[in-house]
């Protein structure tokens, strides 16, 4: 191997020593992490459900800081838990001297990760959880279009769904061929359907946290009742209620516009597919959403 390849390999395997990754702001935040808040609430679910819009409503409250400087969430308890420290996680949040009393982040993939509840229990046992559920049919199609536009998926929506159903059946019938990698469920492009199995994902959380630490609502009701829903969250955080301004929906079609409608027969098939999962969720959270259309 040449000297150049050796240097390249060293920098790839030691990213913290890579001078091209150095950032003054990140270093300052890391050094002051002990003076920073840990989050008081987490929006754990779900991806493609309108987290950006919820954060824009929450941030209208003068005492709340939701999301981070660069993203809506940190994705610490699923993606970076094994490679990053708690100080690194804290470095994303405001300092204890700031005007904000309630801090939160929205990593919508925590809900699906099988190890996230235990990890959060150890670090943030009293944190409050918010679940934003979207009709799983629309959620799956939105996730597919996200992946397709980014070039992660080249097949049609129908083929992608069929391949996921095939994989689910193969892993169930023939566990020998399954790669037992808990992080794989986090990849948006492989779990269009499984990210919509809200009830089975939520059961993992209810085994570890009491139900009164959770608030659930749907993307569809947010559009019509944003004032009521957001104020119920402010009360949940023991903050005073305020009057909110209507916000436009955020982050639609990852900045590349809307996508074509789903085929009717695919929608019908998916409504049937998700029906038992939805019913299970409604009985689990004692709340019903109008998702049969």
């Amino acid at each position: 191997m040449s000297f150049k390849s050796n240097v390249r390999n060293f920098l790839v395997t030691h990213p913290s020593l890579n001078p091209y990754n150095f950032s003054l702001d990140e270093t300052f935040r890391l050094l002051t992490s002990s003076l920073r808040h840990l989050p008081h609430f987490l929006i754990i679910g779900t991806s493609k459900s309108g987290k950006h819009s919820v954060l824009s409503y929450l941030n209208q409250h003068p005492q709340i800081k939701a999301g981070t400087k660069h993203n809506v969430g940190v994705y610490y308890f699923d993606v970076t838990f094994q490679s990053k420290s708690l100080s690194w996680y804290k470095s994303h949040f405001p300092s204890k001297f700031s005007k904000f009393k309630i801090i939160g982040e929205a990593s919508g993939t925590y809900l699906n990760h099988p190890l996230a509840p235990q990890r959060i229990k150890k670090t943030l046992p009293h944190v409050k959880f918010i679940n934003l559920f979207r009709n799983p049919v629309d959620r799956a199609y939105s996730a597919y279009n996200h992946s397709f536009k980014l070039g992660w998926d080249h097949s049609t929506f129908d083929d992608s769904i069929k391949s996921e159903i095939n994989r689910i059946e193969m892993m169930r019938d023939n566990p020998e061929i399954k790669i037992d990698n808990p992080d794989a469920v986090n990849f948006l492009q492989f779990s269009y359907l499984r990210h919509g199995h809200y009830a089975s994902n939520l059961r993992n959380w209810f085994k570890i946290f009491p139900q009164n630490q959770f608030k659930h609502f749907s993307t569809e009701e947010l559009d019509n009742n944003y004032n009521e829903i957001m104020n119920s969250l402010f009360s949940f955080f023991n903050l005073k209620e305020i009057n909110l301004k209507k916000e436009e929906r955020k982050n639609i079609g990852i900045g590349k516009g809307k996508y074509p409608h789903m085929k009717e027969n695919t929608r019908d098939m998916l409504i049937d597919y998700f029906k038992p999962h939805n019913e299970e969720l409604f009985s689990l959270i004692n709340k019903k959403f109008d998702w049969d259309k």
Partner: protein
Amino acid sequence: MKFNQIIKNNIKQHHFPSTKKFNSENNDEDNFRTWNPFQNGLSAAILCGLEIIPINKKSSLLYVGQLEPSVSLNLLDLVENNKKIFIYPKKPNQFSNKENLIQITNFNLIKNQKFSVIYIENLEYSYELITNITKSSLENLGYLIIKFSTLSQNPKIFFEKMSKQFELLQEINIESFSKNNFLIIFKSRN
């Protein structure tokens, strides 16, 4: 199969290039082989979310493409040195003259043999050649694994052609390790 078991190896590390020893979580004495995702498309795919590996100790494998020494060891790990792996390289490869790795220079040599898995490491081969290989050598309901570069073919056209004969199982973008590359697993429809 456990995620860690696919990189498990009982042979001592210093016999092989690109390998590294580390302790397992249970602190037992096993040695492990690190798969190099920059060299091995399958290894990159695992890190990028591959959910199933249809290669195990019961699989008969035909590998089409240039085989890196470390990758051949990874494949032997998967078949647990239990089966012979047939290789059809673009150029003859010295390393493949090894027990359990059988190099072939012509497909006529394996005319009567059927494989449960065919792995095409780099799709510089034409669609027609892929069809011929799979028709003559892939078992019914066998698996086809292809490492595919978006520069060599238009993915949309490729998927349309392949979907006539195969069912897509998973498409994995491995660009983080291999620029413009995908790994795709198909299952034969017949």
